[in-house]
């Protein structure tokens, strides 16, 4: 057993010196390989973290949003619907909400305007998201303008929302309910939707079914459905990036295959010499296996590490516009690092395994040939 480990140590030592002897070629390969792992890992880490982040933030959102539909379109919901819903087992609270979108043609962006009932804001005050403050250059005490109902309304910025929640609050504007009704013309007693909190997550679907039975003109939107939508949006964007990367991936596959499968005359001669001086085919295969492992593992570790820094410390500057979306008000946020074992295993399998196999096959062919024939 000691001999086996010593032998592997000798083979690794020889492999390293072989890699250094052809350092130009191997460094080029390592660089391209690392770049590919970096790009793939960046996309995977970023979308995975966005999904996780969105999931965590949505954990605090209500379990059910009740919207009223008129002719299949979202319509205002009267406050008496809360009474009509009656007492529902498992529902801990029912709250009506006022919210909407306002387009600002100057910055070409949509604001999400909400009027929460728990905030104490006067009709002239507003709280804005960090993205809006950054884009228009507003600070606390400045005036923020909304154009609606053929009129312009100015509000004093009372506060700017916390950067930690920027992923979902970047374009958010909070105003009082009274102000919201003035600028939108929504009459008293009417709301945009009603949100319900349900204590037991397993009862959410049942509650939604009961609601539809009682009030056929409503549409319950479940939190889990929103999460699924986020998931599919990020998967779709991830897919787009992967499609964009296909060209680069193919180029790498061709390059790696060429490097791994085609042995140069010098490499063949070296295999012949090693066999002639007493190396077995298995020794040569081991040596080349180590070569493949050293190159691919180094590329994997370097690429993954670079991707980690890129995603979590520079907010994925290379891919953010594609992965976050095309909104004008880009949220600026630092993602909390999430590492998924399965994700690493998938990336590992698709980047290391094919390379090592592609390296071994031609070497095996050469190593089972008579040394004399190889050297000739």
């Amino acid at each position, binding site marked *: 057993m000691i001999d086996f480990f010593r032998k592997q140590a000798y083979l690794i030592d020889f492999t390293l010196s072989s890699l250094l002897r052809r350092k130009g070629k191997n460094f080029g390969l390592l660089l391209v390989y690392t770049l590919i792992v970096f790009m793939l890992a960046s996309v995977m880490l970023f979308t995975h973290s966005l999904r996780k982040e969105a999931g965590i933030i949505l954990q605090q959102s209500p379990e059910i949003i009740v919207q009223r539909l008129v002719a299949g379109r979202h319509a205002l919901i009267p406050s008496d619907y809360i009474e009509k819903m009656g007492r529902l087992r498992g529902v801990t609270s029912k709250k009506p909400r006022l919210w909407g979108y306002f387009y600002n043609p100057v910055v070409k962006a949509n604001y999400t305007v909400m009027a929460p009932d728990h905030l104490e804001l006067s009709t002239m005050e507003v709280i804005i998201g960090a993205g809006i403050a950054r884009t228009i250059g507003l600070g606390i005490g400045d005036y923020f303008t909304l154009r609606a109902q053929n009129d312009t309304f100015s509000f004093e910025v009372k506060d700017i929302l916390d950067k930690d929640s920027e992923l979902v609050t970047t374009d958010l504007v909070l105003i009082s309910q009274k102000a919201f009704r003035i600028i939108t013309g929504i009459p008293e007693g009417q709301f945009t939707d009603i949100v319900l909190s349900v204590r037991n997550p397993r009862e959410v679907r049942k509650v939604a079914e009961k609601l539809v039975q009682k009030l056929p003109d409503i549409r319950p939107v479940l939190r889990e459905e929103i999460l699924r939508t986020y998931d599919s949006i990020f998967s779709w964007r991830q897919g787009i990036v992967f499609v964009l990367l296909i060209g680069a991936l193919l180029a790498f596959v061709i390059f790696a295959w060429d490097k791994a499968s085609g042995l140069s005359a010098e490499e063949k001669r070296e295999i012949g010499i090693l066999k002639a001086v007493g190396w077995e085919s298995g020794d040569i295969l081991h040596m080349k296996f180590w070569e493949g492992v050293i190159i691919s593992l180094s590329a994997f570790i370097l690429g993954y590490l670079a991707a980690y820094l890129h995603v979590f410390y520079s907010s994925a500057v290379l891919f953010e516009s594609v992965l976050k979306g095309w909104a004008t008000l880009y949220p600026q946020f630092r993602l909390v690092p999430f590492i998924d074992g399965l994700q690493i295993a998938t990336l590992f399998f698709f980047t290391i395994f094919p390379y090592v196999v592609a390296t071994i096959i031609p070497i095996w062919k050469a190593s089972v040939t*008579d040394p004399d024939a190889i050297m000739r």
Partner: protein
Amino acid sequence: MLISLTDINKVFNQGKHNEYHAIRDISLQIEAGKVTCLKGSSGSGKTTLLSMIGCLSRPTSGRITLNDEILSGLPERFLTDIRRHTFGFVFQKFNLIQGLSVLENVMLPAYPLGLNHKELKASAQKLISHFNLDRVMNNPVEWLSGGESQRVAICRALINEPQILIADEPTANLDSWLSQEFMGLIDELRQSGKTILITSHDPAVFDSSVVNRVIEMQDGQILQS
């Protein structure tokens, strides 16, 4: 008798349009502890014969035995084992691995044996000292002169303490002075009990008093033995 060859034939590209019969019906015995020289012009088949004796290639037909053990039908891994422990090779162009040092090149054949590194290094250093290469021990082999390269190749051939040393055209890249020096080394090895098999068309080799037997080859056949 150490090595015996019976009705050996070697055909390259058999059945193809460029088929070439390199060795024809050769039967031969090589004695232990002697220096045997295969003499002949280029293309006479001496290198091909030598590679078959050294288990670097297989005959198309015929039988090769080493100490009464039949080699010609053995699977590759047994041949490797015999090659590793029985034969040491000195090639015409030395075939040293460029980029590695003298010491690393000499140690190379012993790597797969998994020997203790200190002991292996000590053995290699001893050989290198014996062949007066201490000065260049840590230099890359591409810095060496022809004579030095050849001595490194001999050290490498001897690291696993083989019974038989095989040298293919060993003086082809050396001047006459270095050729004489090489024959002196061969004599020294013969006196230490090694069996030596050389191919050459250099009179400095086959006319040397060190050589015990000369076998002349032409067109893949033995002309004179």
